[in-house]
């Protein structure tokens, strides 16, 4: 184990060095923009990717986030060129590459399985893409040396991949891609096989290299935290299409679908009807359990059945306030910085889950009567017929 810890710290110290060693001499960002229109793919009648559209700016870190079967990996494989789309197009800096071979796209790929060539040494693996590009021998030796040095892998240069730990192998895979400075790097759950501690550390490395080099990165993961730490923008995938493509903050604070609201973090859903007789303003929602929530502005019809979503941390306990929802505290669990409370609202239909509330204030006791409300900005409203 001591060897591993040592290499861990070596990696931590060198993330910036690695970026510096790899940085092009000119200061312009190396990344390119990527635009995707109407990408579709089905396998034997099952639609796996159903119309993906997105614009990714040069130097942006974009993550496809979704559970397995959401089509995120298939989308990435189409970007990479390993899978041919049924329809739609992909363009890099305005040039169409939809039908181009993977090798001709000049992308970099990092996969969960590392895919290092087992019969080559670490140095040979890293040199491979450079050899393909006809870089002369002395230059290859210099760049491979620099890259491995910066990644803290110099002493493993002559080893075979199988003699390395998982984290070291993934770092080699990263070196092998970054050594030829591809403008766009695609990563498919590259940290999926690593333990939590190593994953956190590699995230920091990847992020700092990406930022330093101005690389465009398209990343696939099912790990929310990873997506939030790394990404400039996240595309949440469900059933083959993008539910919402937004910054982490946008996704959290202004979810556009119930699925997004519930998928990132958690949400309480309250059913109700939009209040009538207020003209175009339908921000006031009268809940089925009694009480009124004021929601953010949204397109709706007065009288429409809706579901209001509020995050556990955004529900407030008040003594008594106009329109607040009364209920009884069921449980209160102290989890360190805050207390998790569940509240059963008066008049809640049997079978509906209790409200989940997180509060940092002095928590009530189980059995205590409380009244719950939320700020207008923290309430999202969806059509009741929307799934999620």
């Amino acid at each position, binding site marked *: 184990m001591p060897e591993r810890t040592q290499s861990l710290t070596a990696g931590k110290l060198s993330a910036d060095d690695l970026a510096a060693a790899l940085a092009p001499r000119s200061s312009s960002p190396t990344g390119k923009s990527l635009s995707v229109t109407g990408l579709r793919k089905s396998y034997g009648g099952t639609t796996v990717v159903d119309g993906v559209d997105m614009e990714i700016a040069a130097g942006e870190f974009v993550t496809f986030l979704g559970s397995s079967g959401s089509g995120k990996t298939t989308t990435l494989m189409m970007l*990479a060129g390993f899978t041919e789309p049924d329809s739609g197009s992909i363009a890099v800096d305005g040039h169409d590459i939809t039908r181009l071979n993977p*090798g001709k796209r000049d992308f970099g*790929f990092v996969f969960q399985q590392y*895919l290092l*060539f087992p019969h080559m040494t670490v140095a040979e693996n890293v040199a491979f893409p450079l050899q*393909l590009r006809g870089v002369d021998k002395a230059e290859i030796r210099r760049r491979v040396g620099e890259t491995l040095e910066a990644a803290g892998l110099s002493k493993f240069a*002559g080893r075979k991949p199988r003699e390395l730990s998982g984290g070291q192998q993934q770092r080699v895979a990263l070196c092998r891609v970054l050594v030829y400075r591809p403008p766009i790097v695609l990563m498919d759950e590259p940290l999926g096989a690593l333990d939590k501690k190593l994953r956190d550390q590699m995230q920091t490395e990847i992020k700092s290299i990406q930022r330093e080099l101005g690389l465009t990165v398209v990343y696939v993961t099912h790990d929310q935290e990873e997506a939030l730490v790394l990404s400039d923008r996240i595309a949440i995938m469900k059933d083959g299409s993008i539910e919402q493509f937004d910054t982490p903050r946008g996704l959290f604070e202004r979810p556009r679908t119930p699925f997004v609201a519930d998928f990132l973090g958690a949400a309480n859903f309250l059913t109700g009807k939009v209040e009538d007789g207020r003209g175009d303003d339908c921000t006031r929602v009268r809940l089925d359990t009694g009480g009124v929530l004021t929601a953010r502005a949204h397109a709706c019809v007065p009288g429409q059945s809706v579901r209001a979503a509020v995050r556990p941390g955004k529900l407030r306990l008040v003594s008594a306030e106009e329109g607040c929802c009364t209920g009884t505290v069921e449980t209160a669990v102290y989890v360190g910085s805050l207390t998790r409370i569940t509240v059963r609202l008066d008049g809640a239909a049997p079978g509906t889950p209790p409200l989940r509330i997180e509060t940092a204030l002095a928590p009530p006791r189980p059995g205590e009567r409380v009244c719950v409300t939320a700020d207008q900005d923290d309430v999202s409203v969806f059509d009741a017929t929307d799934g999620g």
Partner: protein
Amino acid sequence: MAGTALAPAKVRVKTSEKRGHRSRIALVNAVPVTVFLLVLFVYPIIGVLSLSLEGDSGGFTLHWYADALSGVNLSVLLSTLRISAETALLSLLVGFVLAHAIARMRPVFAALAMLIVVVPHFISALVRTYGWIIMLGEHGILNTLATSLHAPGAPYSLLYNETGVVIGTTSVMLPYTVLVLQGVMRGVDGRLLAAAAGFGASRFTIFRRIYLPLVAPGIGTAGLLSFILCLGYYITPALMGGGKQTVVAALIDQQVMQQDQWNGAAAFGVILLLLTFAGLGVLGLAKLRRKKTAARRSSS
């Protein structure tokens, strides 16, 4: 006091007794294998060895070996080695193409193709060899076809010469090479090849730099296997060589059956055995060298 001192001693005796008992049982278990090996392998080999070193009137001699390694006998030995090498190369070549195709098929078709490759092996070698004779003879199917198409040089002499023997033995060895190669090829991770393509490698480069090195151990094993099997192969060379093309196995047969010359036959047998060991040694050495270079690289 005496009791406490005695108690652990007793326990110790018991456990050591138990251990002794267990190892005795293990020995008993090993008896059948040991006897089997002694009777069926060690005894005959020692018998053959002593036969090959025994003079006509008893006593130690090396002249059977001198005979075997001189004159006509030596040239037969050399041509056996040559035929075996040619067979190994040819069956590797054909086997590689076949195995590569099979490894890329869908499992159902791959199983079917393997069956087609292996099933002929269940048919008696004699029948198969006569099949080849019908195919390759001067008025055989192949030559009739070639003549009717006015192919230059037709009819070819494909039988009763070294060409005929190599064709025959290759067909016998092919299932082995295909089986070995196909196993190795199935083990190659297709994603590695895709990854190489992703870096911009051409198909030829992928084949040369990734695929071939990954299946290389299989090529070595398959080649050596068919070489060794071919060294002692008898029926096909005897029939398809037409008596003109003698191999060591045929020579042994001749000595035993026609000349009642067991000592000379034994010497040939030992020589074949040594050649087989030499082949295995070469393979082992190659493996060792690969390991050593890897170790040297990692230490530098």
